[in-house]
């Protein structure tokens, strides 16, 4: 019974391979939780960082990460939604549409360091802005716009054709149909996509190193004037994000408690990404329930 033995061996091998994957996953999570969670404290989240002293926090980095995330979404979501509408409703099959598809595929799959170099060239050097939050957000938007276009196209395409026909047959224009019937129905799908992409933006580092920079000026959180140099809201100031911070303290930092700080920051980063993912899943399943429940 040779082939039975071969079958056994194969099964054992596959189980073994899966065990290795599971072991790696468990180890990664365990490492982050064991080493990171204990380092997270209110103090850690709310005190400023330091390049040389121990016991510093990640307040500014956390703020910068969220600020860049929000700016990027403000830039890329409207453009992505419009592009998605175009691809799903207006684009006619042909060479131009295929070309646009290739562009979308390319921009969304280029390494982020390459996108970062383009950002450095255009938004830092050519414009003369130097390292800025705005330049960083624009750079990340370059790969997030195509991701959003794809998400929105899929979401709009998944709206039943009957709904679109119903609206058109009632003497409603295509544009009004898109605005009042297709977009509202596609909204949960779009939202899920936005949240998932937010996770990627939040953890992005390579594209930000040389566009938003590796430093943050001393910030005064009581200064709400977006044009002041020390205002956290100023979009033309350099800003080190959380992900960039983890890289920089590990490779160039002089603080004595590097590992501790990096572990804490990593845990914050991973938890944020986890929250984004779970939120997206939750919205997806809520929507699914709503759409399948007829009563």
């Amino acid at each position: 019974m040779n082939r039975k033995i071969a079958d056994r061996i194969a099964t054992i091998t596959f189980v073994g391979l899966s065990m290795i994957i599971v072991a790696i996953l468990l180890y990664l999570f365990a490492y982050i939780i064991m080493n990171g969670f204990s380092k997270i404290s209110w103090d850690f989240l709310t005190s400023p960082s330091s390049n040389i002293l121990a016991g510093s926090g990640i307040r500014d980095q956390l703020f910068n990460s969220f600020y860049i995330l929000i700016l990027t979404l403000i830039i890329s979501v409207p453009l992505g939604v419009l592009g998605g509408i175009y691809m799903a409703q207006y684009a006619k099959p042909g060479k131009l549409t295929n070309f646009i598809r290739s562009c979308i595929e390319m921009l969304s799959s280029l390494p982020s360091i390459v996108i970062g170099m383009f950002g450095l060239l255009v938004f830092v050097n050519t414009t003369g802005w130097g390292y800025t939050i705005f330049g960083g957000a624009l750079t990340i938007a370059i790969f997030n716009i195509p991701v959003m276009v794809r998400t929105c196209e899929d979401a709009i395409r998944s709206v039943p054709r009957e709904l679109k026909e119903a609206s058109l047959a009632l003497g409603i224009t295509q544009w009004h149909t898109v605005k009042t019937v297709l977009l509202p129905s596609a909204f949960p799908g779009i939202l899920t996509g936005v949240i998932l992409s937010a996770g990627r933006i939040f953890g992005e580092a390579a594209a930000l190193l040389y566009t938003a920079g590796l430093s943050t000026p001393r910030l005064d959180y009581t200064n709400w004037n977006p044009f002041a140099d020390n205002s956290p809201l100023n979009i033309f100031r350099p800003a080190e994000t959380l992900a960039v911070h983890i890289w920089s303290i590990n490779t160039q930092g002089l603080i004595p408690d590097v590992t501790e700080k990096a572990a804490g920051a990593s845990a914050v980063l991973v938890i944020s990404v986890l929250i984004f993912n779970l939120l997206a899943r939750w919205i997806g399943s809520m929507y699914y329930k709503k759409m399948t429940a007829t009563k």
Partner: protein
Amino acid sequence: MRNTTELSSHRLLKSNKNRKDSELKGNIIVKSSAIIIITLTIALTVFLSIKGLQSFIKNGINPWDFITGTNWNPTSETPSFGSFNFIFGSFAVTMLSALIAAPLGIGGAIFMTQIAPKWGNKLLRPVIELLVGIPSVVYGFIGLSVLVPFIRNHVGGLGFSLLSGTIVLAIMILPTVTSISTDALNALPKNLREGAYALGATRWQTIKKVLIPAALPSLLTAIVLGMARAFGEALAVQMVIGNVSDFPNSITDTAATLTTIITLNIGHTTYGSIENNTLWSLGLILLVMSFIFILIIRFLSSRRKI
């Protein structure tokens, strides 16, 4: 019902200017986004190409020497710019990490779809999809604080090495390879497997002779996507590989890749200097390689439809 006293030609021929304007406005607004995407793609390719060719055109570096030279010494009095070691480093970590991630990922996918689908779908899959989203700096950090000391103490060398880079990348691309392979195997028609079982084939025979050949283009796509990601990854590798421009003598020796050299130096060199320009040339190589990966993936997905 309808008041048809008004002439039909007044009612039914195109005349309503407001409505036509709003249709036109909608058309223009959505097209603008498509135009932006095209512009960005072309601008990115053109700008990075021009910038990347500067060192050959303006600074007169021989492109062949640049690619094949093994001596990288930009700051000496007679600077030399041979980037072969970095190109080699990039390919080495990419190939080696794919060599580790491919069997693991595809094996895991087979386990999840063919051996224990319940387990796979309910538990493993969501967790693996979650791992795709973990930022690369976190992989780099764990590599730096766990893997590097482990290799230093148990394998030898400094710990910062080709091997560390390979392992970090392999773990990083593992979720990508696994989840795409799982999708590929799930997408196979059910009757394929049932047909093979009906002929009396064992599970292993079915997997080997029927399922893997049928899903091969998609499985290869999964591996190439993983390789593309590994080739372009910068920070995670940079944190563990050592970043030494010498040719690595063994797998435990320090090395460098295209991305790590760019990451390390592009902020420190003067914009427009020869050294800076050569970094943009390395970036151009990276861009070209990314194009090649995209083309390979396209080729594979066109095969898949047949």
